[in-house]
């Protein structure tokens, strides 16, 4: 008997505008000890599956059809008390944000003790004998150093990776039959991510636990999953054994997602960019045929009128497509043009020995305690060159970005732009720097003023110059079409746009005064791979049309490898390695670079 048997499960939400289907006719089985990957873009309904199993659906959502049987229990008809007994014992969860999942006012020890008591109650015991010893054992199983000391620590004293290890250890404490892990590594650094995945793998083998692994990262899914379910707009488009799905995808969507990810190690190739975006809930009701048809490279007329049935394409491998066998014909575009030619050699920007210290504690009559966020970083950038800066969080790469654009003054060091010294913070230098160097911020949510219209945001730079409203409207239309948005978008507010569109507006604002150098801080992190591919193509197009130089800061090595000519690796405020992208990736010199490269999940399939 399967551990989890989901049959034609349909989840709907009803609001004032009508009833909408969030998940439609989901059908899959999970055998004990197996790992099932749920992949798809954000908004596809991945997390909704986990919440349906736990019966923790948001207000207004309900299961409108189908069955969900876990280990012989009908999870949809089960009463509250029984369900609570299953959750946290037979079904465990690992959250996305480890710090948010732990109670900040209780020590780790107290929280483990509470959880032990919950598990003990389920087994009919009333007392936990020697919880401290058990807790230490649990922490040891997650390979945490000094477990006894950890028990007295509060979550904020630990790193995100440590908190996630603790949560994993707690989740496995009751030897659950099923573990639901919702993007467990998304908030963590790449180097930590690999260790977390190893830990989950090790613990699930030891306990014989089945895992539902929800992720948007196909590379991770390939690494860990026995079976994969691909979701698109609430519908299961492909289901099958991991190797089959990744090596011979039978749905164009799976293939397109794979090809949207830049290769980490494999040969250079272009990215497949899916046009547009996933239809929203509201649009689904009027849709006649296949939900993916509008973006599908293989779409035929029949796709727009017929809902494709699930067809079996191999051993346990199903696809909801009218042309499953033609998926292999989708080929990636050729590698970007810059791969074939040499970047310019005219120097544009240099930085020498930049350092930034922060005072952590002022002392009377003595030298204050300081922390060096950046330690003597130097870089050279030629005209039209793309430089990538990689490193984990806390490596000083964002501080370096702020120094380069002048948001913060350097403690020491020197910068020049076209031979002119721009290290000073005086108004004249600042104005010169502003005209030539601009920054694109990481989080479009925070970088766009929610109370301004898009048209006003992109032409914000003109506000301090003599300009008429008509000038600004013209420039806004120009900028929007340049970054691939329709000029009508100028009248919208940022909240009315998708994440990818917001990030485009973010880029357009920096381009308003036609700078020659852009500093882009993690501008594609947190976006879906399809949107990421669109943005990367946009940057390459700008490079071609404008001879723009860009310094890209990213934790994703494959993005840097795809876009950049040269790469700089930072670790704890210091530049540990720099050089041409292909050289550094093929033959890393610094230990840290080697570690980073080893931690990257592998490719998603043959390109």
């Amino acid at each position: 008997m399967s551990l989890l048997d989901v049959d034609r499960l349909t989840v709907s939400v009803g609001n004032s505008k009508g009833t909408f289907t969030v998940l439609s006719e989901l059908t899959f089985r999970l055998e004990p000890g197996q790992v099932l990957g749920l992949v798809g873009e954000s908004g596809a309904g991945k997390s909704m599956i986990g919440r349906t199993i736990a019966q923790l659906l948001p207000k207004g959502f309900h299961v409108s059809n189908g069955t969900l049987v876990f280990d012989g229990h009908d999870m949809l008809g089960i009463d509250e008390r029984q369900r609570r007994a299953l959750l946290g014992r037979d079904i465990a969860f690992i959250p996305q944000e480890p710090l948010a999942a732990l109670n900040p006012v209780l020590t780790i020890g107290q929280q483990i003790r509470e959880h032990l008591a919950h598990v003990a109650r389920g087994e009919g015991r009333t007392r936990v004998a020697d919880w401290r010893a058990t807790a230490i054992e649990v922490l040891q199983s997650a390979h945490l150093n000094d477990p006894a000391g950890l028990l007295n620590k509060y979550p904020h004293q630990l790193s995100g990776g440590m908190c996630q290890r603790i949560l994993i250890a707690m989740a496995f404490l009751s030897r659950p039959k099923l573990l639901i892990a919702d993007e467990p590594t998304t908030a963590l650094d790449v180097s930590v991510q690999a260790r977390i995945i190893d830990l989950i793998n090790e613990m699930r083998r030891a306990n014989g636990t089945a895992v539902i692994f929800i992720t948007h990262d196909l590379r991770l899914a390939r690494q860990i999953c026995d079976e994969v379910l691909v979701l698109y707009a609430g519908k299961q488009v492909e289901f099958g054994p991991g190797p089959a799905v990744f090596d011979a995808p039978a749905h164009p969507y799976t293939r397109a997602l794979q090809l949207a990810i830049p290769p980490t190690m494999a040969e250079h190739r272009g990215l497949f960019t899916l046009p547009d975006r996933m239809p929203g809930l509201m649009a689904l009701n009027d849709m006649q045929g296949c939900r993916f048809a509008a973006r599908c490279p293989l779409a035929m007329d029949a796709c727009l009128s017929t809902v494709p049935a699930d067809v079996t394409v191999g051993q346990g491998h199903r696809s909801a497509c009218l042309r499953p066998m033609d998926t292999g014909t989708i080929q990636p575009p050729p590698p970007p043009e810059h791969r074939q030619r040499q970047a310019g050699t005219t120097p544009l920007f240099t930085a020498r020995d930049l350092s930034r210290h922060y005072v952590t504690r002022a002392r009377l009559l003595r030298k204050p305690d300081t922390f060096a966020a950046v330690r003597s970083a130097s870089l050279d950038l030629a005209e039209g060159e793309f430089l990538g800066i990689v490193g984990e969080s806390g490596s000083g790469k964002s501080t370096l970005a702020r120094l380069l654009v002048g948001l913060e003054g350097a403690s020491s060091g020197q910068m020049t732009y076209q031979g002119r010294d721009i290290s000073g913070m005086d108004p004249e230098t600042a104005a010169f720097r502003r005209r030539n160097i601009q920054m694109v911020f990481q989080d479009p949510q925070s970088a766009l003023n929610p109370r301004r219209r898009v048209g006003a945001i992109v032409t914000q730079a003109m506000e301090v110059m003599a300009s008429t409203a008509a000038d600004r409207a013209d420039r806004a239309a120009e900028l929007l079409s340049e970054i691939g948005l329709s000029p009508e978008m100028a009248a919208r507010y940022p909240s009315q746009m998708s994440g990818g569109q917001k990030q485009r507006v973010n880029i357009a604002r920096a381009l308003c005064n036609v700078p020659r150098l852009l500093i882009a801080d993690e501008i594609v992190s947190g976006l879906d791979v399809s949107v990421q591919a669109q943005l990367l193509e946009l940057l390459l197009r700008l490079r071609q049309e404008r001879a723009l130089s860009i310094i890209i800061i990213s934790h994703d090595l494959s993005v840097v490898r795809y876009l950049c000519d040269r790469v700089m690796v930072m670790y704890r405020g210091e530049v540990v390695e720099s050089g041409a992208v292909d050289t550094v990736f093929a033959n890393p010199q610094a230990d840290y670079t080697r570690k980073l490269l080893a931690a990257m999940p592998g490719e998603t399939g043959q390109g």
Partner: protein
Amino acid sequence: MAALPLWLRNTRSVIGLTILVLVCAAALLAPVIAPHDPNEQDLLNTLLPPVWADGGDPAFVFGTDSLGRDILSRLLHGARVAMTVAISASFGAMLLGGFLAHVAGYFGGWADWLIGRIIDVWLSFPPVVLSLILMVGLGSGLWNVILAIILVDWTRFCRVLRAEVLVVRRRDYVAAARLLGFSHLRTIVREILPATLPLLITLMALEMGIAVVVEAILSFAGMSVGNEVPAWGQMIADARQDIYTSPSTLILPAFAVFITVFGFNILGDGLRRSLDTRLTQTERA
């Protein structure tokens, strides 16, 4: 209903606004609609009960006080003082507190330290005592009452707004504005102020209610406007001797204070619910 702005679709705001429009109308129209001169004494008809009680006189709808003055007329004229103080004092306190809050929150450093310490010292005085002391120093009169309330209550704005400014200042769009060449003043006015404005408006509504109470306390203590100007606090003070024989002379002005403050508070609460982004986000999600 889509045409109405969000804050007007809130029942609380509508109730509060209705009450306040009525009180304002009473204040503005007092000289026209008041049946008597508020200071006219009719010593033959002192301490008359309201018209619905036994012995009431239709000429004096709410009855008269110990000097035979018409209570309804005095209530209507009293609203003039209450509303003038409420609007001017809260506006002044908002300007002073809001200005210092933006300076402290935006620039940080020693400016923030200095303003923070001034507030600490200021708040260590009990507010009523501080305003009484100020009134002694300033002398009585309508504008001095307003000034005293401003000088006492600006700290309330400053504290709350500074925290909000700190949050907004850390947003990347503020850094982006600086990178695009915005001066500090323009950054504050164009990027930060629009984000703090909802809180500012909400605080102002609440402050108006507080100002009405403080004015009533000051005039009760005889430290507000002169005797010739009718004020609610004064009416309550005058009614103290006759509290057992004719309770309505005390209850009516007290009720006027209550309903006005209630109006301001419920309006402020309604505004907070519809304007505070943190609340609206969680409610809509």
